[in-house]
């Protein structure tokens, strides 16, 4: 295992120290609870937005805390859901009287820990908590009888859009409804060229031959749905977009917010090349790109690969997307 780390057990907290050192103007980091907060306390009457999950997906979530986006992000161990204590601490801190929205990615661990935290926060502090669970990964079949789809790229877009709504002063019910709408309107699909290595595990989670790729990958180094021979970028783009487009209805005037996301080890050069392929397919499919993001936003440590997220976005969503945001990972208008 080759990483720029010290003791594998200290990776998360040392990275949080780095975030604190790098962004004292915007962030405050509670190292004991491993929660990243905006520097300034929450504005009275603003809905608090809390997210979190395993570490190793940076900039998500800690790097998405700031004006117009999250109020707090709980950092778990690498690829391991944070614990309810962290979420409770965060929830109490960002309760500005208007309640708190939990943004949860659909993983058994995340869902259960956030559930426990919401129960405890309601009981202990009387904070009104609502939750949205993002499950946008079309690589996984949705079903009532399984864990359902995973939550991946749409989470980033949702945090931006609902962050803007909360900043506008919308109510908890409105924010939760909007979050549900966004979660339902977004779909993602990813692939990997290489595995990644969890620091505590010390070896790659899976092995891929030099001429293989893994399609339908999540963001935790889990093996994907199928292993295939390497293919040119053009075919990879088709493979990723096909199931996404099959699951979203773009008839009518609705455009798309598109994210061409890197898994952490893929250079921007390749992401732009992939974006070109994606843009071509969307044009052929009659989907108008309203806004886009190209870069590393929801990653899987040093994994090489990419994912595509499409979000059906009407004018209201695009307006919220364009609202000012000031986080380490996403910034405009400020």
């Amino acid at each position, binding site marked *: 295992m080759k990483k720029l780390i010290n003791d594998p057990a200290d990776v998360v907290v040392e990275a949080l120290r780095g975030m604190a050192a790098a962004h004292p103007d915007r962030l405050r980091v509670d190292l004991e609870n491993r929660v990243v907060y905006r520097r300034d306390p929450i504005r009275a009457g603003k809905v608090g937005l809390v997210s979190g999950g395993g570490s190793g997906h940076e900039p998500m979530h800690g790097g998405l805390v700031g004006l117009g986006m999250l109020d707090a992000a709980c950092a778990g161990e690498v690829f391991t*859901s944070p614990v309810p204590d962290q979420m409770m601490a965060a929830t109490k801190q960002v309760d500005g009287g208007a309640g708190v929205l939990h943004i949860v990615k659909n993983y*058994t661990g995340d869902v259960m820990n956030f559930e426990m935290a919401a129960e405890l926060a309601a009981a202990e502090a009387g904070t009104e908590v609502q939750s949205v669970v993002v499950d946008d990964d079309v690589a996984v079949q949705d079903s009532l*009888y399984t864990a359902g789809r995973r939550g991946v790229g749409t989470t980033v877009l949702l945090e931006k859009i609902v962050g803007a709504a909360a900043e506008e002063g919308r109510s908890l019910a409105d924010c939760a409804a909007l979050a549900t709408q966004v979660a339902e309107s977004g779909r993602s699909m990813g692939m990997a060229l290489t595995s990644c290595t*969890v620091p505590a*595990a010390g070896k790659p989670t*899976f092995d891929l031959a030099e001429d293989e790729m893994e399609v339908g990958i999540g963001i935790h180094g*889990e093996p994907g749905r199928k292993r295939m021979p390497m293919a040119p970028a053009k075919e990879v783009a088709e493979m990723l977009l096909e199931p996404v487009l099959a699951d979203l209805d773009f008839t009518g005037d609705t455009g798309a917010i598109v994210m061409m996301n890197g898994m952490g080890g893929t250079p921007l050069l390749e992401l732009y090349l992939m974006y070109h392929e994606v843009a071509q397919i969307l044009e052929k499919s009659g989907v108008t790109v309203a806004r886009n993001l190209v870069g590393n936003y929801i990653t899987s440590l040093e994994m090489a690969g990419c994912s595509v997220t499409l979000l059906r976005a009407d004018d209201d969503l695009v307006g919220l997307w364009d609202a000012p945001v000031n986080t380490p990972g996403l910034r405009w208008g400020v």
Partner: protein
Amino acid sequence: MANLQSFTEWIADYASVVSEQADYLTDLDRAIGDADHGSNMNRGMVKAAELAGAEEFSAIDAYLKKVGMSLVSNVGGASGPLYGTFFLRMAGAFADVAEAGAAEVGAGLRAGVEGILARGKAETGDKTMYDAWSPALDAFDEAVGAGSDLAGALRAAADAAARGRDATKDLIARKGRASYLGERSRGHIDPGATSSTLLIESAARSLA
């Protein structure tokens, strides 16, 4: 009969087993999950095992409650809430119990497993830790029915758990992270069923 001391020994024993088997548990999780089950459990059990030395406990239920809270607070992932809830619910079954025999321990385990079900909503055959617990509880009750003492019942439960764990190999996962693999989850033993079997085996050593 198991008293408070037996329960602290159980936790200590399990902590040392988990620490020894952490890499193995993680390897199982690497195959069909995200390669962290061993480190998750180990992180939690180290903390849980420290409780007995750091604080004076006067009753089994208070102790098990702290163990549960400690797991909830330190494990994370899916296994944190599941094992945490297990111990919290088990604690509830030991109110006013200072010395537990087969009946009390049986009731305690069942309450704990009901907690796992309430949290995780797994069913038999979903390829989760419940596939070790479910036959273990049945075997425990059967042994007690057939006149076994606590030691015998726990021994029977442990054996059944191990068989349940091994049987997860041929299942397709329908809950937890492994479910994303669909067909590809077949052929691998479930990590949580393995750590649960270790917990019951440890009980068979410590509680009787």
